[in-house]
């Protein structure tokens, strides 16, 4: 029987981190407690299709596919939710990999070109820039909710967002090209 591998701690791969805090408004002091995060549904041209996964050694995660491919090698975004007594969430970049404990391999140092292309397509979300001659940044925003576990004040739950941005279109002017052709004729 094939053995499976374990991804490193998400804080030890290329990641983005979000930290959460609770403030006791009665005295203004911080109240230390773990937090829980949920992903909201949203309206996108390319549906999110989030998947809750277990088996990650560092806690529950949500993965979002960047394409319709679900086989080994398919690109995904992974959101590492706060686990146990933690108050931090990580965003990592991964591919489907049935040889990993949680079914996905986290890239350690960045993303390869093919993944970057899929990420840009996902961000573009089937939209076209209105002016191909100008650079257009497109964004795709995911919305999450967070609240404290011990205090569990539902009415105090707040949303936060993770926005992915990529630039499309436009013509870049090169200003340092060495002219190697025949000299210009003037006169």
């Amino acid at each position, binding site marked *: 029987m*094939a053995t499976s*591998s374990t991804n490193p701690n998400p804080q030890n791969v*290329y990641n*983005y981190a*979000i*930290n*959460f*805090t*609770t*403030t*006791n*408004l*009665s*005295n*203004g*002091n911080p*109240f230390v407690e773990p*937090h829980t995060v949920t992903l909201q549904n949203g309206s996108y041209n390319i549906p999110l299709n989030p998947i809750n996964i277990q088996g990650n050694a560092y806690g529950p995660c949500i993965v979002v596919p960047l394409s319709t491919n679900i086989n*080994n*090698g398919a690109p995904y975004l992974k959101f590492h939710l706060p686990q146990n007594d933690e108050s931090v969430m990580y*965003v990592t*970049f991964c*591919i489907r*990999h*049935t*040889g*990993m404990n949680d079914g996905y*391999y986290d*890239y*350690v*140092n*960045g*993303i*390869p*070109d093919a993944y*970057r292309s899929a*990420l*840009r397509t996902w*961000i573009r979300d089937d939209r076209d820039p209105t002016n191909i001659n100008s650079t257009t940044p497109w964004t795709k*925003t995911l919305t999450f909710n*967070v*609240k*404290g576990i*011990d*205090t569990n*004040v539902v009415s*105090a*739950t*707040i*949303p*936060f*967002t*993770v*926005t*992915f*941005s*990529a*630039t499309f279109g436009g013509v870049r002017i090169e200003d340092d090209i060495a002219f190697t052709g025949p000299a210009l004729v003037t006169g």
Partner: protein
Amino acid sequence: MGYIPSADTIYAVAYLTEIGRNYLFNQNNNRFDTNGDDLFEITKFTLSDVDTNYQTIQLLSTGEVPDITGKNEDCLKSTANYVQKNLLAFVFDDTPTNVEYSTDLEGDNLLIREGNIPTTNETPPAFPQETTGPFIGGGTFTPNTGGAFQAR
């Protein structure tokens, strides 16, 4: 106070000790500690049969309340020769209910620019090989003849 089998209303009267009265009137400006916490805050209480002395058949006079040690020093009302029995301490839950949750993100938004993500040439581990698996049961199968699978 003995067991009251039934009552519509129960009143509890608190007699403050010397330090309690100091906190109430903030004498010597000592009501709040260095963290700003109010020291004149009931955080726990006990239930016990405080007004009964099991060592004697005599009963306390109405209005008499012993302090925690049974002594009568620095207490508004007290009695002596008393031993606390079956003391149950109840602690109030100090989990705050008036809270604010927050993130360390500016505007509660994390912006990830694709162009800022570095490029890598790292190679993931090899994907597991798909197996054909064992055949369960033996037999022959003749395709395209409409024949059924026949076990040996």
